[in-house]
């Protein structure tokens, strides 16, 4: 109940309430006295679950089972929570196109309203982490330096020290965190998608997660400046050294060869 009323201020909740309430309960609504807001919300929630169940049956059940119990092709979704659904479907990873070492990020095919319905349905199967609020994922006022320390302790081993991503075993990889919605970063930490371990609130608090998001926003955000220019992927001294040796020294050798190859004689032989 508390979760529901917390979610009622979500901007999309209003849209969901409006659309669904109009479409499905328009007739009944006229017959009864106007219900209070909480009740309308509750109705909207159960409607969202119903709608989500329909979407689930069409798009997800073939791998995850008709009741989310999981099959040999997909894990059980009982208890993964709304946050996992919002991350997996919201980044286009789900529905998966084909099995493989890792399901990549791709075009999102569900609208946010549909994702919320799916999330509501999955959340109704078993308690799990909820979709974070705007405040929880905002980098405003967070401690960037502390975030950097937390990032280097917990995340940098796979995602590189500025979130550029890196390779794992057998074709798996840690994706680049460039341009990822802070909400999705938060949800990934909380739910641990695919082979990424999770960092639940009990071991990495909401404040810690905010700091990490603020750090990523500072070093890898859209407005991040690179004072040195030409950051060569931000991969560090190896790529920079290689570039210096190959292109810097290469250019010097080319100039030396060019100078010596041209004759200064009046009569060209």
């Amino acid at each position, binding site marked *: 109940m508390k979760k529901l009323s917390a979610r009622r201020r979500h901007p999309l909740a209003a849209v969901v309430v409006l659309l669904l309430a109009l479409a499905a309960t328009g007739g009944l609504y006229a017959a009864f006295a106007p219900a209070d807001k909480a009740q309308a919300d509750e109705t909207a929630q159960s409607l969202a679950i119903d709608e989500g169940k329909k979407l689930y049956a069409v798009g997800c059940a073939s791998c995850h089972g008709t009741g989310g119990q999981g099959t040999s092709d997909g894990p059980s979704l009982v208890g993964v929570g709304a946050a996992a659904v919002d991350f997996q479907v919201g980044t286009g990873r789900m529905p998966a196109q084909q099995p493989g070492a890792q399901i990549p990020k791709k075009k999102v095919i569900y609208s946010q309203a549909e994702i919320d319905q799916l999330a509501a349905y999955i959340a109704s199967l078993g308690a799990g982490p909820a979709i974070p609020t705007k405040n929880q994922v905002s980098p405003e006022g967070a401690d960037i330096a502390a975030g950097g320390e937390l990032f280097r302790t917990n995340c940098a081993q796979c995602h590189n020290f500025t979130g550029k991503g890196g390779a794992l075993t057998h074709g798996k990889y840690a994706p680049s965190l460039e341009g990822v919605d802070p909400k999705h970063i938060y949800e990934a930490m909380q739910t641990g998608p695919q*082979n*990424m371990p999770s*960092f639940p609130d009990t071991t990495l608090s909401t404040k810690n997660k905010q700091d990490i998001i603020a750090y990523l926003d500072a070093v890898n955000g859209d407005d991040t400046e690179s*004072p*040195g*220019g030409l950051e060569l992927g931000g991969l560090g001294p190896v790529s920079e050294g290689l570039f210096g040796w190959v292109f810097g020294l290469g250019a010097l050798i080319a100039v030396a060869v060019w100078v010596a190859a041209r004759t200064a*004689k009046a009569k060209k032989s």
Partner: protein
Amino acid sequence: MSSQDIPEENLPAAQDADEHAPGTVAVADETNPFADPGLPPHEHRIQDIDERAASRSERTVAFLFTLSMLATAGFIASYVTIPSDKSIYVFPIGHVSAMNFALGLTLGVALFSIGAGAVHWARTLMSDVEIIDERHPIAAEPEVRAKVMADFKQGAKESALGRRKLIRNTMFGALALFPLSGVVLLRDLGPLPGTKLRHTLWSKGKLLVNMNTNEPLRPSDVAVGSLTFAKPEGLEEHDEDFQKEIAKAALMIVRLQPENIKDKQELEWSHEGIVAYSKICTHVGCPISLYEQQTHHVLCPCHQSTFDLSDGARVIFGPAGHALPQLRIGVNDEGYLEALGDFEEPVGPAFWERG
């Protein structure tokens, strides 16, 4: 100049008798079957023939040197005038600090112009006539050698080293003892580490403290599939020896479903599926924590050693020689995770005495 053991006819001066007319070719005869083609005739550059071309080259060189002066002035001007936090967009390198870009560009132009000017000067205006420098015997002349030997003998006699034995022997003693000071300093290579490599800060009853929150961990905090790093209770980040101690004591805590744990000892040393492993790779000691929660593999970013955390952290790939040491953990009366002792084996890379 002496030419004691070089036959007169092999001396360069004799060989190049008519070298003053380059381009002449020696003719093969019976004693010398291979003709020496000699040097090709010297060819002039346009600058040697045409005075206007020479002045053009002079102007080019002067222009390059002037450009360098301007670039240096530009370097100083950029340093003084451009604010250090200003950012500009330059294709193709993207957003870059305006000052860094200006300093690099002007410094590069200044140095390059000096080099290019010098090269152009040498190639077009300085003399390019081939010069022959003859080789001479290196030995000193006999009278010089005789004088040196005589001087040495006289010096030895005047020092009276053979007669004043006390001086000689004490000098030898001083010279022989002096290197000992260097030898004594080699002691700094020791002492041997003793048992330091075999022990860490962990001991029975020490709580596992979460490195993110600095709070002791409870079993309920650690979810299946999560990854947490822990340090021993009492070790604080501002401690003087923090780096030294955490480098051995760092822990990686994951929770597996107990039925997924294949190794019997690992299960015994875990608590409800929570296992605590050393975070230090047994190959060369990199912090190792690329944990894949579905495969339970953890790999090292340095040399890709891969350990299976569901099977006693056995090495399944890479150069590491030992499984990761596991810390035996339990829960104390207040419900916090605690160590039940130190690591049973040394953490980190293998060493000579470990066997």
